[in-house]
């Protein structure tokens, strides 16, 4: 059995390093005034003080965490009840999930961003439309295209990931839910813009 609680110790050390970087590197390099500054012969609190205090708070928490890491496991060993700390843990599987989830979400929003303009570029001529997407972003059906396409990918990918199969129920939900949400925001309110129409 290990003498220390490695998870807690590592977490504490990582945050201590982060706090040191914040206080001694990030804050000095990325703020204009120091901790205190003299303006018209009066001392005032500078912009660097508050973030430095935040860094200090992280450092204190990190030191307490290291202390827990060093003493916690020892005490449990002494008491003959070596148990994992409530630290839980961030496993590689967790990180893998987070990465996948983030990729799905980013992909959904990229589809949301580009689907409408791409559809106008590809289909505009067939419908006799010469205007750009920007000019059409407040007209039906163009204004819904990106949102519904991106929402479809987001919902379908999420449901399929959990159910591990493609079902008709998932497909219907992925089509209907973005449509209903789009109507919920768009029909009653003239001044609201659905994603991505405010950026285009």
């Amino acid at each position: 059995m290990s003498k220390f609680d490695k998870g807690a110790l590592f977490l504490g050390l990582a945050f201590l390093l982060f706090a040191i970087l914040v206080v001694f590197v990030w804050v000095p390099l990325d703020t204009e005034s120091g901790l205190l500054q003299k303006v018209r012969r009066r001392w005032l609190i500078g912009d660097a003080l508050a973030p430095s205090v935040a860094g200090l708070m992280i450092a204190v928490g990190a030191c307490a965490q290291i202390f827990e890491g060093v003493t916690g496991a020892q005490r449990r060993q002494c008491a003959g009840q070596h148990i994992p700390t409530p630290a839980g843990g961030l496993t590689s599987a967790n990180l893998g999930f987070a990465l996948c989830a983030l990729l799905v979400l980013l992909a959904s929003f990229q589809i949301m961003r580009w689907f409408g303009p791409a559809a106008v570029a590809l289909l505009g001529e067939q419908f006799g439309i010469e205007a750009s997407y920007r000019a059409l972003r407040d007209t039906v059906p163009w204004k819904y295209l990106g949102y519904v396409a991106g929402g479809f990918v987001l919902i379908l990918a999420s449901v399929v990931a959990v159910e591990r199969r493609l079902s008709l129920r998932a497909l219907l939900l992925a089509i209907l839910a973005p449509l209903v949400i789009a109507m919920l925001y768009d029909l009653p309110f003239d001044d609201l813009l659905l994603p991505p129409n405010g950026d285009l």
Partner: protein
Amino acid sequence: MGYWDHVWLGIVAVFTANPVFEIFGLPIGTTLVMVAAGFALGIVVGATPGLAGPMAMAIALPILISIFGVRESALLPVLGFLIGIMKGATLGGAVPAILFNTPGTPDAMLTAYDGYPLAQRGLARKALKTAHFASASGDTFSDLVLFSSAPVLAIAVERFLDLPEKTGLIILSLSFIAALVGRSPAKGLISAGLGLLVAYVGKGEDFYPRLSFGQEALNDGFPIVTVVLGVLILGEAFKSMEALIRGGPEASTQAKIAEATDNRFGFAELRACWRYIRTSAVIGTAIGALPGIGSTLAATLGYAAGRRDWARRNPGKPGFGTGRIEGVAATEAANSAVSGANLIPVLSLGIPGNAAAVFLILAMESIGGFNPGPSVFKLHGGVTGEVANPELVVVFGIFAAMMLANLLNWSCGGLFMRWVGVLVHVPKQLLLPVVLLLTLTAIYVQLTSLTAIYMTLGFGLLGYVMRRLDMSVLPFVIAFILARNLEDTARQAFAATGGDALFLLHSPLALAFTLTAGLVVVLAIRRARMADHEPLDRGH
């Protein structure tokens, strides 16, 4: 204008201002309708596993702002709706716990300990009625304590605390939240420190935006909506999605159990439960008034106190956890009593105590015209002092909205609660992605920028990682909200004391607050160490 004039104006603002329709010539105000709608939605949300009050508040806020705009008259309808959700969700949370043993929150888990065995014996309706009565009682008691204590506390703060003392008080609140929320004070401190750091990105006093890495998008800092919704809502959604992916889709089949003949909640039941409701309501209110300590601890303490009391009075009989309505009553009264008392620090100090309070402050900040804190309780407005203080009118409007929600709770909450049991069958794997899309859309329509969405995703990832590390996200969010207030008060105190770097140590009260802040952290770390020594089998 006097105190009672403000009370009257607040009541009028809720009940009759901007009437939506009339009943027998009586105008029905917009806020009244919004409280009722919010309350109904809250019960639905609370009864749906995978959803929670704060999630519904997050989604509703931008829609409400779109409907009512960001003018002063929008405050009460929007806050009324959010208060309705807050109260309804607390009540609705008992439904899945009792009917299907699927508690949506940790405190509802304690309701399930006794509620589900009752349901299995065909006494689900009795358990639901008990939960409703206890919840409404706890909630009403807590609100009455709020109405009487918040003004007194605010007036005391305004009269006795100057800038150094106010700085000390914010430091004390922060250390309290950091040290006592979650299981590890060390992680609480890290969480609060991160919240402060994120809040200080962007505009300070200098022309150059601090900590922005030269990125234009960060010049004004992170929008509060992206941080709060990202960490609180998306982080939780990611964690739930992962649990679903690893555990497989939810089964939604439940065996039908025949109803028992006696499902009443009559005088005999009331007499049996009253003792536990009374104790739990006091415990819940006391816990709720302390910033950062949520309903889970209140429910745990209320349940534990009730269980001890019952065992002492009824030796040899099967106790809590075997299907006793007293157990349901003890838990529900305690967790419901938190919601009203939680607004004591919000209204009197401007310090949010839990996630629901965070969204109320978010609404106040988004709409403007109301800055929660001791100054809202000032009696006189205008230059001559003859004009009503609009912020005090809003406070009494909030109180009136809360009482209205309580009336709804007593009159039709129980009935509505029993109707929504069917929602428990909506599979979480279908609900979560829709909620995710709805939340991100809500952020976009408010900020109209994909950059805001990407920021929210980033904070969602941070919230997920923090949860995986068993690091509570509430200190992060509350520190983020209090950060600017802390810095501004400290700047003013420093300037007002002529550049005295030790301004926190010269006033006895400020010194007391600062020392207590340190003491709270040290004691919490010590307590956590001692808890490590305790045997694991504490039972439930």
